[in-house]
């Protein structure tokens, strides 16, 4: 019976005071929101924090949702701005540490690369790895377009740019992903030889 309720119905019930209805919305979108946050933060702990903050912000502002766009588009806009703010804060607070963090992440990735078993090294594994190595904006555009089922116009609304800009970003993101994947696979072939 729950699955028959639309987002709008769940929002209306939430506004009437039913927190259970909002829990359903959280369950529906938690994977999308978490993945989107992860594209920015590049680590699970920060992504969890951004995703939680986003859901709480949306709950607080639910009465101001005018239904001019899909609920998901509105939700992803909040996730996008929350992630951007979080990144800016982190960059300001730990400029020097960030470099070390990046270095550690690269080193960790390299060690994971060496220790992975052969069965894990499927094409999807390399793709998942490649997407995490893309710049945040590229990874976000790809996630919104392919997984969150957002149109170019909706992505433009979320990211606050023109639709043509989204089109160019999407094209570049795909090309970068393809190049990254080819680099990774070449590395793998060399390793095997």
């Amino acid at each position: 019976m729950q699955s028959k309720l639309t987002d709008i119905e769940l929002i209306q019930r939430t506004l009437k005071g039913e927190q259970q209805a909002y829990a359903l919305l959280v369950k529906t979108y938690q994977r999308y929101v978490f993945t989107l946050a992860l594209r920015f933060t590049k680590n699970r702990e920060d992504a969890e924090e951004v995703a939680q903050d986003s859901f709480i912000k949306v709950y607080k502002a639910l009465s101001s949702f005018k239904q001019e766009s899909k609920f998901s588009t509105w939700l992803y806009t909040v996730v996008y701005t929350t992630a951007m703010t979080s990144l800016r804060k982190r960059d300001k607070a730990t400029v020097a540490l960030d470099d070390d963090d990046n270095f550690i992440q690269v080193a960790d990735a390299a060690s994971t690369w060496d220790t992975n078993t052969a069965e894990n090294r499927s094409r999807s594994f390399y793709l998942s790895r490649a997407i995490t190595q893309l710049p945040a904006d590229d990874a976000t555009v790809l996630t919104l377009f392919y997984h969150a089922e957002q149109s170019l116009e909706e992505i433009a609304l979320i990211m606050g740019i023109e639709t043509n800009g989204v089109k160019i970003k999407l094209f570049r993101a795909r090309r970068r992903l393809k190049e990254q994947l080819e680099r990774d696979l070449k590395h793998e072939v060399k390793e095997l030889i």
Partner: protein
Amino acid sequence: MNNMEEQLWSYIDGTCSEEERIAIAALIEKDESWKNAFNNIVAVDADISALTLDEPPMAFSYNVMEGIRAHEASKPLKTSVNNYIISSIAGFLILSIIALLLLTFANASQTTHNIATNVHLPDLSAFTDSGVVKVLFYFDTMLLLFLADSFFRRKRTDDVGKSV
């Protein structure tokens, strides 16, 4: 930018015009390099689509709802009080005041009339001053509030039950 690649992506996404779509379809059909590039792009597109979403931790939704409960608990009382209850109390008080005023005016005019005609009306003060009446009135009010409370509680439980 690679013009061919860009055009092929527009073709796959369906963002090109009808004329462009026909022209690109013809190129894929006739030109081997376009056909190979198209097949490569379709493969990449399928790969990206097949990527799975990341799973948040098990307690994620619970943590979100805990955060919301904490937010609700920290709200000031005046924002969580139902407006209908406030309106009902206000309405009740206004009606009581109006009734009391009407009663006072009626008594006043009756008094002046009594002076003029010397007609004696039955004395109701024994009833209104009686402690029994006051207890009865208090009991009725409490009963009314209790019934209203149980009615709204039942209504809310029914609504929650329907959503599950």
